[in-house]
């Protein structure tokens, strides 16, 4: 009943070459269902496009949501082949339910940044503003990686936020900031970059910032373990990293 994690590395009878093409990848086909953290929306869109281009028979379907919600669905038996989490805690929940002990792969890191509406109308300068009861402040909900990390950063800065909303995932939070309905929120650096000019960013100093880690694993519920492994190998390859770097993610 619980999804079981496969030893993606062990099962990979072949590595990936430097171009990121899984050497066993010739002739791969079928549909791969990937459950990925909401903050990976653009990255996994690009990664799956490139993977599909390299393997014309492959169709990748991605379900983006908060990592905790995805982990919950997987534990309830949702038919996912690959799980990409924006933190270790939710990855551990899935891995711990597995029969065979296996290490998921760390494939990217990210930093937090304060997002403000275009032009920063409330003149937010740092985490200190989050205690201002007159500002409209949003965070991701507790349990969601961006919510947990944001609270860690605020703790480090000694700020108790005057919160107005706990959003279910980072994209929902970003939408409200982009609409100008919130004065500030804490999101990932990559989200501010992905929004183009639609939101502004205020950086969080290194001593208060928290590093988000992104993990990926194949699940035994996978219809095609070879396909799942090939996709994971592609994500952790140099070509995959190049795409991730371009979108503002840091290497593992």
């Amino acid at each position: 009943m619980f999804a079981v994690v496969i030893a993606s590395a062990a099962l990979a009878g072949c590595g990936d070459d430097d171009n990121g093409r899984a050497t066993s990848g010739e002739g791969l086909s079928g549909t791969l269902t990937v459950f990925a953290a909401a903050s990976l929306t653009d990255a996994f869109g690009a990664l799956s496009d490139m993977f599909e281009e390299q393997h014309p028979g492959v169709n990748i379907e991605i379900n983006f949501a908060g990592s905790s919600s995805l982990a919950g669905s997987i534990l309830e038996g949702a038919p996912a082949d690959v799980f990409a989490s924006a933190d270790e805690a939710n990855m551990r929940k899935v891995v711990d339910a597995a029969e065979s002990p296996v290490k998921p792969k760390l494939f990217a890191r990210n930093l937090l940044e304060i997002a403000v509406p275009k032009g920063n109308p409330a003149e937010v300068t740092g985490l200190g503003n989050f205690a201002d009861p007159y500002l409209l402040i949003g965070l991701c909900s507790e349990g969601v990686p961006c919510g947990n990390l944001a609270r860690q950063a605020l703790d480090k800065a000694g700020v108790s936020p005057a919160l107005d909303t706990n959003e279910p995932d980072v994209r929902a939070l970003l939408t409200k900031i982009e609409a100008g309905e919130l004065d500030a929120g804490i999101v990932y650096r990559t989200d501010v970059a992905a929004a183009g000019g639609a939101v502004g960013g205020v950086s969080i100093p290194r001593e208060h910032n928290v590093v988000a880690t992104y993990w990926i694993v194949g699940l035994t519920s996978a219809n095609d373990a070879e396909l799942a492994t090939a996709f994971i190998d592609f994500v952790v390859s140099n070509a995959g990293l190049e795409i991730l770097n371009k979108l503002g993610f840091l290497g593992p």
Partner: protein
Amino acid sequence: MTRRDIGSSSNPTAGRPPRFIVVIAAAAAIFVVLPLFGLLWRAPWSDLWSLLGRDVVWDALRLSLITSVSATAASILMGVPLAWVLARTSFPGRSLLRALVLLPMILPPVVGGAALLFALGRRGLVGEWLYDTFGILLPFSTAGAIVAATFVAMPFLVISVEAALRSVDRRYEEAAVTLGASRWTVFRRVTLPMIAPSMAAGAALCWARALGEFGATITFAGNLQGRTQTMPLAVFLALENDRGAAIALSLVLVAISLAVLVALRDRWFATP
């Protein structure tokens, strides 16, 4: 033999439906009831009382009652006149207006919430004026949660009341007018009592829809315990990190809904 006997239940085969209909009906009933058993099956019975004693549960329950009752009251205040205009007057564009008024019934609630945000948010079409002129800020407030619930629930009241207004016998109203009653008196003393049962049924549906409202609320009003986090929002967020609490909250919602259905059974949902 009287005419009355023909086809009545005294004929033993007449009331017996075809077997395949019974099979499908049984499957349909199981389909509806099964998820409820899923909930009961996973319920953390031993921790239930301590889970239900938490602040988050009581805050959500209190907010749910406040928002759903307020939304129903607002729907009656605005919806009855609207239904009257739709049923009793004739003007160009009436059918279009009617379609637009009923749109929230079929619109995905998240779309409704986003639309509310763009209309009544701080940078919204009307919201910016409300904020700059009166300092009224609906998103992230309890008032905003009530607005969201009213938006999705009011059509259920309007559609019930409009149907009732179309079906009542107009002669009572005409008689009252010939006896010298003013139009307001006729509405208050003749029309309203005649449509009261439909209005009550519409209000019950409206309240139930408001109680279950999720998408428009989280999109427009956000989610903050004690301010905008109603029961469905609390369930959704608890599902992510505290499944036991989520199920406990769900059981409370099921219990309230069942209690209301049972209480209203005889009065508004006639069963033979």
